[in-house]
């Protein structure tokens, strides 16, 4: 039934002639595998390098039907390849290994493998692998059709990769039902162009490469709509990209959700992130880290979150952008992002290259600055520990701020896991960073309310060595400060103690926030903390952020330590604090000095005083756009580049700041992930100072 007969392409005799790409570094195994596959009458291409495989796949999207890959390879982890292929090309991938440990198999599943075979592979097994191709095509189209209508269902949990869409369908009666009910029309109309089981070739639409830009737009759109409400159609409209179809968006969304779920799991395990969002000016922390592959997504959550757990970024750790939007406008932000915060789970397994950024923005209404730490932890796949819980605390202040913690994670290459956990490295949980600020000034001495709990999102990032090569962390922090509120000065002082090595070092005094992250093996995501200063106190906000940039290739821990002016903070950090970097919004004039930090490889800690006077455009992707109404939003973007070092750019907050003070703190906590699992507990601090003005003094 295919018209390919003329091309002498035996695709009509599927599975005969199915085009397989086999990847294995062991020449003996590869040779054998090739022979076996040919025996099954497949069309085989082999390569012994994962990178070559990726290139082959990228150059011609439609060249292959299926990929079989070994798990352990020197140039790239098999799981990483798996994810990349799944994200970029949406092809079924089968894993091969000698090792059949449950854990490994599980890892394969969570990363989206549609099958896991043990070596030595038998020909009988290979004879059946074509089913994965069919299944994926079949259910993928259906799924795409229904994806839009199934947002809600999906938000719960998206299981597996596209390949398991079928399972999802089957198992979820509701899903099925809804699909039938709602999507009949769509399905029909989709059917024409939809995948045809009989005609695999027709099923292939031109593959969309989710470039960094595209992904950024995608994430922005999703955040705008709210992860729960993000429907492919709307996302598509928002993105406004030509030649992008709803199906593309739908399938990408599905993967994204999966990714989020995975990292949220990890975060949950580790700690709970308490996001204190007070009325402090909203600062959005956006962290987005992009790696070469550049997919990042940001979720925006609006609303106040208290003790929200942030997702931890996957190990590969990308730093997301923290954008803090100060001001109330955040409320208008889609709150869906917040929901994400609730569960942070980090899949223990390191994430593969894909880095997904999740940006969670937690708006907080507080006069004080809201510190948001976006923990970005880069975690290497191998890091297990990253479970970071980030707590975002919001300093309560008179000002109504909403702090938004954007947690972005997700880079194709790297994953950021933000997690605060007992990990020695860093306790920052994935996304959130805590805000802390202790008003230097007299205003209120306490930065964090009485509770003075600081939640830090510490990012634990462990980067596995293989990762670095592919990973580039861009950290953009954008802090939006909205001060607008009455509160006068916020000073957030937060001392973050990095739990890295010692889990639970919390200083009650938030006078200084020091983030120390040191991870040897892990890459740390950089956390930038921004402290906001109240106008009264200081005109400029200095943020010292220590950025520890993880070095690609090497474990590097980035720790951002922020020092806050001494301020008597009552925050008690229970949890190991991860470094949170808080970008404080600019005081008075709300200028945020650009934070640029160049992170050297391996544990470089930068202390930068951030003087936000000018905003620099972060060279990184734009921060999330939140719908702020009149919120002043200052976004600081920090981009971390792993390879090249991390630097943070801060953008000047756009909004106006509260007269007097506002503080938007962005904490970007970079957690250093240790290779081991450590859990960092987030420090919960209540920042609840209601009216107090936080003066941030840096």
């Amino acid at each position, binding site marked *: 039934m295919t018209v390919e007969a003329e091309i002498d392409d035996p695709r009509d005799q599927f599975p005969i002639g199915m085009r397989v790409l086999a990847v294995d*570094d*062991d*020449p*003996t*195994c590869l*040779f*054998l595998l090739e*022979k*076996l596959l040919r*025996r099954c009458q497949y069309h085989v291409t082999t390569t012994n390098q994962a990178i070559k495989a990726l290139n082959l796949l990228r150059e011609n999207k439609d060249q292959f039907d299926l990929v079989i890959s070994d798990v*352990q390879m020197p140039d790239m982890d098999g799981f990483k390849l798996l994810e990349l292929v799944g994200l970029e090309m949406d092809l079924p991938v089968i894993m091969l290994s*000698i*090792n059949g440990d449950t854990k490994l198999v599980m890892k394969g599943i969570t990363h989206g493998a549609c099958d896991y075979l043990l*070596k*030595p592979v*038998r*020909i009988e097994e290979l004879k059946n692998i074509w089913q994965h191709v069919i299944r994926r095509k079949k259910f993928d189209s259906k799924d795409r059709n229904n994806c839009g209508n199934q947002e809600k269902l999906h938000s719960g949990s998206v299981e597996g990769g596209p390949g398991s869409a079928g399972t999802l369908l089957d198992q979820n009666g509701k899903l099925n039902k809804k699909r039938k009910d709602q999507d009949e029309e769509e399905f029909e109309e989709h059917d024409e162009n939809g995948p045809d089981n009989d005609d695999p070739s027709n099923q292939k639409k031109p593959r969309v490469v989710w470039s960094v830009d595209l992904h950024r737009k995608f994430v922005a759109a999703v955040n705008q709509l709210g992860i729960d409400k993000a429907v492919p159609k709307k996302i598509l409209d928002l993105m406004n990209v030509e030649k992008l179809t709803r199906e593309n968006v739908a399938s990408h969304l599905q993967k994204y959700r999966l990714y989020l779920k995975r990292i949220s799991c990890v975060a949950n395990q580790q700690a709970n992130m308490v996001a204190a969002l007070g009325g402090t000016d909203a600062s959005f922390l956006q962290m987005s880290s992009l790696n070469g592959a550049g997919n990042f997504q940001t979720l925006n959550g609006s609303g106040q979150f208290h003790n929200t757990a942030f997702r931890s970024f996957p190990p590969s750790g990308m730093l997301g952008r923290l954008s803090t939007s100060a001001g109330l406008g955040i409320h208008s932000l889609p709150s869906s992002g917040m929901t994400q915060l609730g569960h942070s789970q980090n899949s223990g397994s390191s994430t593969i290259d894909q880095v997904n950024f999740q940006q969670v923005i937690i708006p907080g209404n507080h006069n004080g600055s809201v510190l948001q730490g976006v923990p970005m932890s880069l975690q290497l796949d191998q890091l297990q520990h990253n479970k970071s819980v980030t707590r975002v605390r919001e300093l309560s202040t008179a000002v109504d701020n909403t702090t938004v913690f954007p947690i972005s994670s997700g880079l194709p290459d790297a994953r950021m896991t933000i997690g605060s956990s007992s990990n020695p490295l860093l306790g920052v949980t994935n996304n959130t960073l805590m805000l802390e600020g202790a008003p230097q000034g007299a205003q209120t001495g306490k930065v964090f309310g009485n509770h003075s709990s600081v939640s830090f999102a510490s990012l634990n990032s462990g980067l596995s060595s293989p990762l670095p090569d592919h990973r580039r962390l861009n950290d953009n922090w954008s802090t939006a400060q909205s001060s607008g509120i009455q509160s006068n000065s916020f000073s957030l002082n937060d001392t973050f103690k990095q739990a890295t090595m010692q889990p639970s070092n919390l200083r009650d005094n938030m006078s200084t926030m020091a983030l120390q992250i040191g991870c040897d093996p892990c890459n740390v995501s950089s956390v930038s903390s921004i402290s906001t200063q109240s106008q009264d106190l200081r005109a400029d906000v200095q943020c010292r952020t220590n950025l520890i940039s993880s070095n690609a290739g090497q474990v590097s821990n980035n720790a951002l330590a922020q020092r806050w002016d001494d301020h008597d903070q009552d925050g008690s950090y229970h949890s190991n604090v991860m470094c949170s970097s808080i970008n404080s919004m600019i005081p008075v004039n709300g200028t945020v000095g650009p934070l640029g930090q160049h992170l050297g490889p391996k544990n470089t800690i930068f202390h930068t005083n951030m003087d936000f006077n000018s905003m620099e455009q972060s060279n990184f992707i734009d921060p999330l756009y939140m719908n702020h109404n009149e919120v002043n939003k200052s976004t600081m973007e920090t981009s971390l580049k792993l390879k090249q070092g991390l630097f943070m750019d801060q953008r000047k907050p756009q909004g106006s700041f509260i007269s007097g003070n506002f503080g938007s703190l962005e904490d970007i906590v970079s957690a250093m992930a240790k290779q081991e699992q450590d859990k960092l507990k987030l420090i919960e601090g209540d920042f609840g100072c209601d009216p107090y003005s936080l003066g941030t003094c840096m």
Partner: protein
Amino acid sequence: MERNQMRRQLALIRQSFFDQGFLDEQFIQLEELQDDANPNFVEEVVTLYYRDSSRLILNIDQALERNPLDFNKLDNYMHQFKGSSTSIGAKKVKAECTQFREYCKAGNSEGRCMRTFQQLKKEYAILKRKLEAYFQQARQAGPLETACRSRN
């Protein structure tokens, strides 16, 4: 006549491989893949295996000379080694690999690691010799024979 004899002999030798535990069923799989298009498939694979694994052995030897031992690295090498050995069905070699990895994981038995590796090399060499002889004889006996060798 002579051919028949040779073939019989070959068959016996082959059978002894299995009986003595040098090779396992995977080898049979290899043989089954051999066909007219690839009449020497098995030999090719085995040759490839020996070429590649000799490099590995070198690496492992070097790694074993270090002090202290980098068990992680050794484990990685061994993982690869095991993978290829499994692919051709080298049973004894595979067993030694497993043993070696156990010791690596324990992390504190350098002596045992060394000894196991010596043992492994020995088995490896023995198998190599045997297989070489086997293939040589097989070639003499006539290529067609390999395809329809009787399976026990």
